[in-house]
């Protein structure tokens, strides 16, 4: 009977679960890892980035984002938008071409792959014949010209990927139409560049690797002109104003050739801009006219090899101004955005994709300042070491942070973001969320994480508080490097940390008081307050000895940071007023701030302490160190040493093997065989010793049992069930929970009476697994509110009538204890049941998607298997489980941070956060619409242009009947019109393209 009733409740609960929980990966924030290709559509005003992992990302105006992933795990080498269309073509490393389109579906656009194609050569031809090296999306929007390694140019009709064999430009045709003296000496090599004449779409410039440039007429199928460049070709560019062609070469030179005159195949102008000494190649060159006359010339590379060969530069020359923009990492590609409604005016912005960031230069403003990017911000400009999320920031604090941040952004351009394609249809975010990231160089960055774009708000540096090795004047020296080349540093990617001790490990922000606590690698804890004015004051430092004079400890790690004694000037924003320094200066592993009691608790591998930042005095210290724990006592250096040692050894081994290899070359096959045999023996040995795991219960003398994992403040019942008291809870790596009762003086005596703390309880979990979470539930089973939350009327005050419960989350179990008498009530054994361990845990609120007022709290958990779990409170029952992160992705799992509303972030690469949501009510995902550009309609209306190509094709293929042609044109019209109202959700892309090809084949 009981079972039946429970069953009924279960189905009800199941329905509720569906209303509450739903798993979605919504959006990726940050900069794509290892970008490899850049594309831009002036008509759509969309930017496309392809990555080495095969992802393709499209960005328009802020909030407009699309992402696609190729099935092949190959790098994207080229991205080309079809002019005036919503399609784009990607070329992958594996020589496959992919067609993508933006399809509107229920008012929102989505990126879909609609076709794929691999060039097939004649039977028996080497693969190099069809290896695509250059792609030209013809302005007709119907043709794709593919230059290959073999020197041929294949012509393919898109979007169906139909090969037009008759129109291919073979190497033989080129050699026949060019005088022998240009060819005889050497082969032409691969097709390096294909460029269409902006004035006449029939003329295409084909640049071969060896330097020969041939102008080919697509209609007449013959070469019009050729330019015999002598240097290895890097890129080609038609200038728009007059019939010039610019070619850039591997020796750092560029040449200008005049197009149009039949016999004018001499170089008109040749220049090595940074010449004299040998230079590196100019990999890309663009020249754009302006209305006022003087054109803009952009080229990348070309630096003197010996002195500046390691720089990543783009040079801009306009009038007399000449600047070499010095980027932080390798340049992938760049393009220029032009002014005007049709994007045909003067150049207005230069967009450069370098390996680690996207930089946009405003060409309209004096001095060519950088425009702050609203997305694609390099999160990893210094490596992220920790992150912290605060939901629902009060407007007041939000505005103050924004104001402080704006003061930091003075050297950015005032111009709006130039890439404006698409419409962001996402509703305004319901609340203001802040993501704080701590970095290796001691900075904390505050990001607006409310919506789809992770926008930088404010950057805080803690380095100024300390004396560091670096010279603060370092940056000033860089200008005085010499006048030539005229370098200018751009970009913010700077992975080199001055001092690893500055690294930020823990962050805690109180959103009501604006009080921020930040803790770092060298045991430093800074308490900061938001100040709207710049100020200059000394920072009080307090050293606390966590060992409490215990003998026999020797710290071999890094030393404490040296705090500046003199007053330090702080700009408006978060200004530190107190520094606590732990001794020994081990990494701070836990931090908790209570802004109502004005206390900050901190913990390291040695113990934990409580600091009163009102009185600026330490309240108490508790050493949690296990005397037998040698590793924790000595600090990290011993391990660092071993890494150093192993590195040295491996280098020696490499050197040794090189030497022996060289010997082998001299000393023939016998020894080679011997080496092979040895290798085989080694391999066999490796197979004999498989991966083993020791089965051993955790004992109390494991390493780092004293490491403090979590600190928690709670106002709850500890001594008896009628008096609640403030308390501090600490959980260690060894499965121990320490509870201290705090006695706070009354508000009026808060500044002069000391705070006292007494040990109240100690819970040692028998399974000794590290404690990762502590929560106290009130009488209703609801987690206690944050400090000051009740005071600001943002939370119901906790129920102090019923009995409180403590939820202890260890890596292995969830356990509920009663309070004040600590006795186990319920538990959920996770590890014992499925072998996974808890890596991250947080309390989250889940709202029902059906009824507005239903809300419940639960624990959200990330396991070492990369699974997300939701555990109900207070019953500790598993609700749902979703696989989220690959279990091999250790850094992803370690970087996960949860929000209060069931969302979360984790790093999918050093530079990208993936955002996910477990809640069915709170979801932040891009909703945007990209409309087919007007000019594309124009191109359909002025049909003659593409039609001319088709007729050219018809001339060559005589068997096609006239009636067929007209019929096809009708079909084609139908198809093109269909394009705009495609029933996208019904048609599988492959069938769609197949359908199209059949029509073309009529």
């Amino acid at each position, binding site marked *: 009977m009981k079972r039946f009733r429970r069953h009924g409740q279960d189905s009800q609960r199941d329905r509720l679960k569906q209303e509450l929980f739903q798993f979605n990966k919504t959006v990726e924030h940050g900069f794509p890892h290892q970008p490899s290709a850049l594309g831009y559509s002036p008509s759509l005003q969309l930017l496309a980035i392809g990555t080495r992992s095969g992802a393709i990302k499209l960005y328009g105006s802020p909030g407009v984002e699309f992402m696609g992933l190729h099935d092949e795990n190959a790098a994207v080498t080229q991205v080309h938008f079809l002019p005036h269309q919503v399609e784009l073509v990607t070329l992958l490393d594996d020589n496959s071409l992919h067609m993508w389109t933006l399809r509107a579906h229920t008012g929102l656009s989505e990126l879909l792959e609609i076709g794929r194609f691999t060039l097939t050569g004649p039977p028996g031809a080497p693969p190099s014949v069809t290896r695509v090296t250059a792609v030209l999306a013809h302005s007709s929007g119907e043709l794709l010209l593919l230059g290959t390694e073999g020197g041929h140019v294949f012509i393919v009709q898109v979007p169906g990927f139909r090969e037009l064999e008759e129109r291919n430009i073979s190497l033989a045709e080129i050699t026949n139409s060019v005088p022998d003296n240009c060819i005889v000496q050497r082969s032409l090599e691969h097709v390096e560049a294909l460029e269409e004449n902006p004035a006449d779409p029939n003329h295409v410039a084909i640049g071969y690797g060896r330097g020969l440039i041939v102008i080919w007429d697509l209609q007449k199928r013959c070469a019009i002109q050729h330019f015999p460049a002598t240097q290895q070709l890097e890129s080609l560019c038609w200038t728009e104003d007059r019939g010039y062609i610019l070619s850039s070469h591997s020796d750092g030179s560029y040449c200008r050739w005049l197009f149009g005159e039949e016999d004018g195949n001499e170089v008109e102008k040749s220049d090595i801009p940074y010449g004299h000494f040998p230079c590196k190649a100019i990999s890309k060159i663009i020249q754009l006219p302006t209305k006022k006359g003087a054109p803009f010339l952009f080229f990348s590379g070309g630096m003197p090899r010996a002195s500046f060969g390691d720089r990543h530069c783009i040079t801009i020359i306009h009038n007399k101004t000449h600047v070499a923009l010095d980027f932080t990492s390798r340049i992938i590609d760049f393009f220029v955005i032009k002014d005007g409604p049709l994007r045909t005016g003067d150049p207005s912005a230069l967009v450069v994709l370098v390996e680690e960031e996207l930089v946009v230069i405003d060409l309209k403003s004096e001095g060519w300042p950088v425009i702050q990017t609203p997305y694609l911000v390099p999160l990893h400009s210094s490596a992220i070491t920790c992150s912290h999320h605060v939901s629902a920031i009060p407007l007041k604090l939000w505005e103050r942070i924004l104001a402080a941040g704006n003061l930091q952004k003075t050297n950015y351009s005032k111009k709006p973001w130039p890439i404006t394609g698409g419409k962001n249809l996402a509703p305004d975010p319901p609340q203001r969320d802040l993501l704080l990231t701590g970095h290796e160089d001691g900075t904390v960055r505050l990001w607006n994480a409310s919506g789809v774009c992770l926008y930088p708000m404010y950057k805080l540096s803690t380095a100024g508080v300390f004396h560091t090795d670096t010279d603060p004047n370092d940056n000033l020296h860089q200008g005085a490097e010499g006048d030539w080349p005229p370098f200018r540093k751009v970009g913010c990617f700077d992975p080199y940390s001055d001092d690893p001790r500055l690294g930020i490990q823990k962050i805690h922000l109180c959103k009501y008081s604006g009080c921020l606590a930040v803790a770092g690698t060298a045991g430093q804890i800074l308490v900061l307050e938001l100040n709207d004015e710049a100020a200059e004051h000394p920072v009080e430092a307090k050293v606390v000895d966590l060992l409490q004079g215990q003998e026999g400890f020797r710290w071999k790690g890094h030393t404490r940071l040296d705090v500046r004694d003199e007053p330090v000037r702080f700009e408006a924003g978060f200004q530190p007023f107190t520094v606590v320094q732990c001794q020994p200066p081990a990494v701070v592993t836990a931090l908790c701030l209570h802004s109502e009691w004005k206390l900050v608790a901190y913990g390291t591998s040695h113990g934990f302490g409580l600091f009163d930042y009102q009185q600026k005095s330490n309240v108490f210290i508790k050493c949690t160190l296990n005397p037998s724990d040698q590793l924790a006592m000595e600090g990290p250096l011993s391990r660092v040493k071993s890494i150093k040692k192993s590195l040295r050894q491996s280098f020696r081994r490499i050197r040794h093997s090189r030497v022996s290899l060289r010997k082998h070359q001299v000393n023939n096959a016998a020894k080679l065989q011997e080496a092979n045999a040895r290798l085989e023996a080694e391999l066999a040995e490796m197979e004999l010793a*498989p991966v083993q795991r020791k089965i*051993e219960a*955790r*004992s109390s003398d494991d390493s780092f049992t004293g490491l403090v994992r979590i600190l928690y403040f709670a106002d709850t019942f500890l001594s008896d069930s009628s008096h609640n008291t403030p308390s501090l809870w600490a959980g260690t790596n060894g499965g121990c929970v320490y509870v201290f009762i705090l006695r706070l003086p009354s508000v009026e005596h808060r500044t002069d009476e000391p705070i006292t703390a007494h040990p*109240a309880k*100690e819970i040692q979990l*028998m*399974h000794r697994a590290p404690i990762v979470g502590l929560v106290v539930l009130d009488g209703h089973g609801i987690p206690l509110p944050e400090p000051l939350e009740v005071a600001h009327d943002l939370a119901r005050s906790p129920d102090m009538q019923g009995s409180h419960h403590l939820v202890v989350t260890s890596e292995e179990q969830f356990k509920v204890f009663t309070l004040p008498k600590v006795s186990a009530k319920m538990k959920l*054994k996770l590890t014992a049941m499925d*072998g996974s361990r808890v890596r991250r845990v947080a309390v989250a609120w889940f709202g029902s998607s059906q009824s507005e007022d239903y809300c419940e709290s639960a624990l959200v958990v990330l396991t070492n298997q990369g699974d997300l779990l939701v555990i109900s409170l207070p019953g500790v029952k598993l609700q749902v489980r979703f696989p989220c992160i690959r279990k091999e992705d250790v850094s992803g799992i370690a970087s996960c941070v949860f929000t209060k509303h069931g969302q979360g972030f984790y790093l999918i690469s050093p530079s990208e956060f993936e955002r996910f949501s477990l809640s069915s009510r709170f979801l932040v995902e891009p909703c945007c619409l990209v409309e087919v550009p007007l000019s594309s309609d124009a191109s359909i209306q002025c049909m003659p242009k593409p039609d001319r190509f088709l007729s050219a094709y018809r001339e060559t293929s005589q068997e096609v009947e006239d009636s067929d042609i007209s019929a096809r044109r009708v079909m084609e019209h139908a198809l093109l019109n269909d394009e705009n109202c495609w029933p996208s959700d019904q048609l599988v892309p492959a069938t769609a393209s197949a359908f199209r090809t059949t029509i073309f084949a009529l």
Partner: protein
Amino acid sequence: MILAAVPQLIIQPEGRMSRHQQQTSFKATDSVVEVKSKFDAEYRRFAFKRNCPGGFQEFYSLLQTLHHIPEVDMLLGYADDHGDLLPINNDDNFHKAVSSANPLLRIIITKKEDEPVVFATNSLQRRKKGLGLTGLRTPASLSTHSKSKMGLFIGRPQNFRQISSIIDVDILPETHRRVRLHKHGTHKPLGFYIRDGASMRVTPYGVEKVPGVFISRLVRGGLAESTGLLGVNDEILEVNGIDVTGKSLDQVTDMMVANSHNLIVTVKPANQRNNVIHRGSKTTGNSGSFGSNGSTGSALSHDSTSPASHSTPITASNSIVEGDSDEEEDDDGDLILENDCLTLYQSPNNTNLTSERLHSSPVVRTLPQSVSVPVYMASKLRSGQNGYPGHSIQRSMREGGNILTL
């Protein structure tokens, strides 16, 4: 003379220890047990009625008072008819000792050596219940002189306890073996390694190679090796009733470590010759099986190499004990220290071996037997908590290939 101590023994019950308290009849019976107890060089002589000897605890505390060693942990032994020194550590063997007195009962008291800290965390209940088990099935006939003769060190009786058992023979296929390892909070390592491997399985599609987890190595002197029930290359099928197929090596490792306090592994032994032959009779079995980890059922312990041993009455008693034991004798024994300094609660015994960690409480040495120590096991509140002796095992014996597991 000291006969007066007998009523005192019965009238003054130490807490709720004795189940014989009510039988306080003081009838004149001629059979009186003379007792001569020896501690170090001191002797005490006294006597009590043979038919109402009371429980072991009374006797224990009586001896403590007589010898004026109230705070010393001690081990009791008696010399039986054959001159063997046998232990007294529970009611049963105490009664056995009383009955064997002819008429003099010679008690030898030895001081217990320093126990590991874990001992202090073991509750009195555990000790009491667990001891019932050790006494009955200990054929531990060891006398001081026999020890020297054999030249083999045999641990003291209190160090014997069960470390492993084969369970669920009646429900498992003969090719499988379900082994329970008892760790009992000792520091002895479980001591084995596992690895990934491939196992052959018969599926509807024929024989297939599927990934499996195997025992790769046994640590010398570890618990696993000393049982003799697990061997290298045994395939692990289940951990505490949970199938391990599809789980990674690390997951299985974590499952085992998390269950290490009461680890039940089902293996398919690589060596199939020593399997327990299931005879279909449930004479030794316990049919009541509850819980997925099947902790009940017949318990065939001791000796995997000689199947004869399971017909001994020792096995029978063992199975009863196994039947009592709950599947949840696991890590629930969280140690909770309460230091209610606000209520000024000062128990005379409010400390224990870990109390040095609390700087505000006075350090008083305490009797581990005292029930009023504020250290209590959370598990104590649970029912069905069967125990094991709260002693640490110091050595298990291996003799001619036979493993004695107790």
